[in-house]
């Protein structure tokens, strides 16, 4: 039986508990325990495996997915999970125009075949569809339906939970702490070492997180500074886990701008002004990998050498040749993220050297997101982390460079980047199921993107988490970046 309490420090508070917002990691880390999806990416694995769905079949044309559900799943209120709940979940997300659907491609509808069979149909073939389903958390129709009203139960689900996951959200004080307790009728059972309670404590200050970790009040502190993490590595009693994260950090240039960044030559100059090696060595203290283009080097479809190397002298020459000295640019970033701040400072410092002023505006995620919804409110440069919801080139490249997903179209393409050829390549790759062909298409896309100087890929930081050595079973989950595999964790 599960025992003990695991306390995790978290620096950002969650917006709400709505599965529609599962794209956001502070929300996802709570939902991951409380809900189940049809399929899952277990921590440490890069392939989808069954969860609510025991098995599935895919039609020849790749347009119809039929899932067979487990029959032993109960929601936290004791009622059985059926195909109707799955259909309801998807219908609700559609109606609510939920963010999670951005990654799921051309889903056209769900159909209940019988209690334990559900059929999902697409309007176009979509390669990573299964992977994308891992973020679709199934809600209890009976509980949610009465609250649908005109807001699609957004308000109700924001503070209430209707899941079937291993943990029940026992208390929700989003500025203080959220507590999850083990659900004793969980279908997966409780064999092995598990914790009975998981508490997320919201502690903004990295230094406070460190104090609490040291005093034993928390067992996992992900947000302390790199320097502190390095120091902890040498201290007994702590384990510093470095996960192979695949979350590229970009400087997105506003390619649609009427200002200087609208000019590809100017962007070419900018592309030479950031020293990635220095960032990796001195800001990340070596805990990460050196970027080579917008896709993680180990992923299929990666093409190397698409981005320019650091060459401040070359940039300086371009500035002098073109008379760009005196230009003023603005960058928007999240000051709460230390490496973003450092990168901005570094860029500011380098640009200052070649006569360009870079103003920085610190913001929070939602505020920054709001500014990119129009081209003319988009800053010259935006910093953005791409958190791919599943390990597939599509999750990074399509989200960041497809013109259908520009910021002004509500996506994460904050470079407002639009290139017909790239779009065509990405769409073709998405609808294909052949890995080799897809890889080829993605390589071509990367070359084109590189020639347009849409972004600087700043870094691939490792996911460095300081953990008390009493914790066992913590493993980084690349598909759920910045979350914790709480159902696998036990306390010694």
């Amino acid at each position, binding site marked *: 039986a599960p025992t003990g309490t695991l306390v995790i420090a978290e620096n950002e508070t969650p917006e709400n508990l709505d599965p529609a917002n599962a794209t956001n990691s502070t929300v996802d880390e709570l939902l991951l325990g409380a809900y189940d999806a049809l399929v899952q990416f277990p921590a440490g694995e890069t392939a989808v495996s069954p969860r609510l769905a025991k098995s599935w079949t895919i039609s020849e044309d790749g347009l119809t997915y039929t899932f067979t559900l487990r029959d032993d799943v109960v929601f936290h209120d004791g009622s059985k999970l059926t195909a109707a709940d799955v259909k309801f979940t998807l219908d609700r997300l559609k109606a609510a125009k939920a963010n999670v659907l951005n990654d799921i491609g051309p889903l056209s509808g769900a159909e209940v075949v019988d209690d334990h069979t559900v059929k999902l149909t697409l309007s176009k073939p979509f390669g990573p569809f299964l992977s994308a389903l891992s973020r679709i958390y199934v809600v209890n129709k009976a509980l949610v339906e009465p609250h649908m009203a005109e807001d699609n139960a957004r308000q109700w689900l924001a503070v209430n939970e209707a899941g079937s996951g291993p943990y029940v959200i026992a208390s929700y004080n989003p500025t203080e702490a959220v507590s999850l307790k083990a659900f004793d009728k969980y279908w997966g059972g409780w064999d092995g070492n598990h914790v009975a309670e998981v508490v997320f404590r919201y502690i903004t200050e990295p230094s406070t997180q460190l104090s609490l970790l040291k005093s034993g009040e928390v067992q996992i502190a992900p947000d302390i500074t790199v320097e502190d993490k390095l120091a902890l590595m040498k201290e007994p009693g702590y384990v510093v886990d470095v996960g192979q994260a695949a979350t590229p950090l970009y400087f997105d240039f506003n390619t649609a701008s009427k200002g200087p960044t609208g000019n590809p030559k100017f962007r070419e100059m900018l592309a030479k002004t950031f020293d990635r090696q220095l960032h990796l060595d001195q800001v990340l203290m070596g805990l990460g990998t050196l970027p080579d283009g917008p896709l993680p080097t180990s992923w299929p479809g990666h093409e190397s050498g698409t981005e320019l190397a650091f060459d401040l002298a070359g940039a300086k020459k371009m500035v002098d040749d073109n008379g760009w000295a005196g230009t003023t640019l603005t960058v928007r970033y999240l000051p709460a993220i230390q490496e973003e701040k450092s990168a901005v400072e570094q860029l500011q410092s380098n640009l200052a050297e070649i006569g360009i002023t870079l103003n920085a*505006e610190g913001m929070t995620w939602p505020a920054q997101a709001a500014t990119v919804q129009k081209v003319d409110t988009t800053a010259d440069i935006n910093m953005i982390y791409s958190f791919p919801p599943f390990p597939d080139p599509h999750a990074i490249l399509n989200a960041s460079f497809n013109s259908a997903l520009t910021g002004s179209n509500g996506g994460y393409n904050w470079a407002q980047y639009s290139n017909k050829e790239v779009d065509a390549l990405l769409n073709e790759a998405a609808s294909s199921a052949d890995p080799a062909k897809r890889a080829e298409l993605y390589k071509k896309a990367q070359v084109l993107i590189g020639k347009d100087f849409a972004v600087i890929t700043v870094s691939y930081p490792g996911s460095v988490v300081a953990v008390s050595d009493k914790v066992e079973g913590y493993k980084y989950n690349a598909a759920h970046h910045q979350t914790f595999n709480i159902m696998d964790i036990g306390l010694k």
Partner: protein
Amino acid sequence: MRVLRRLLSFPKTNVERTAIVLGCLILLLALVGAFLVPFDPMKIDFRAKLQAPSMLHWLGTDGSGRDVLSRLLYGARLTLASTFAVIIVVVIIGCTIGIASAFVGGAVDNMLMRLADIWLGFPPLILALGFASALGASLEAAIWALIFSWWPNYARLSRMVTADILSQKFIASADALGVPTHRKVLHYVIPNAMDVMLIQIALDISAVMLAISGLSFIGVGAQIPAPEWGAMIADGRSYVSNGWWIVLAPGIAIFITAVSFNVIGDMLRRELDPTSRRR
């Protein structure tokens, strides 16, 4: 010369003398400090980050390898300039409203002062926060936000002082002579209100400075890489465990400046305030 001699006769204790010396020093540093800095306050050098105070870096370096002393000196100008910007605008706006209100009198006066009363009530930080959120985060926004929430102080004070002056007999004497209003304002009201205003300004310097750095600390004021003192503290707070000097230095700078101007303000109050003087 006379004014200077008079000013030099004010300090009575060593604390006051120290405060004046420090106050002048800080103002001087704000003016010329930027030329004295041993290192470029903006130049990032990650290889030199988090160095403890040493002969080379007297106050150490920060998380991006910048010299803390250089940033402190450079930031003095930024911090004090924003403080004075707030105070100057607030004094001009507040006093104009206050003096006009006292002269007009009646219902207008009553209404303006009620408004100021109510306005004053709102916690300045929250009001400024609301304002800054509307304008977006920047040092200018923080300055405007503080102006927005601070003006009633001066409106009320100048109204009170003006009303007090207007109720005195020398104004009645002036009325008996038919002195026109503009002359009354320039020759009677302003010279007599000056002292009280000066005291308030001296005391407000520290209050405004604390407020500005507070806003910067929350993140709605100065933005990176500007070395505003409050922003420097915010910047350094994540390094307290392995770079305590980064937070300590700007904090002490704010503290010394605030205390100096407070002491000077108190001294001015003692020396200039008509109500505390014996006849």
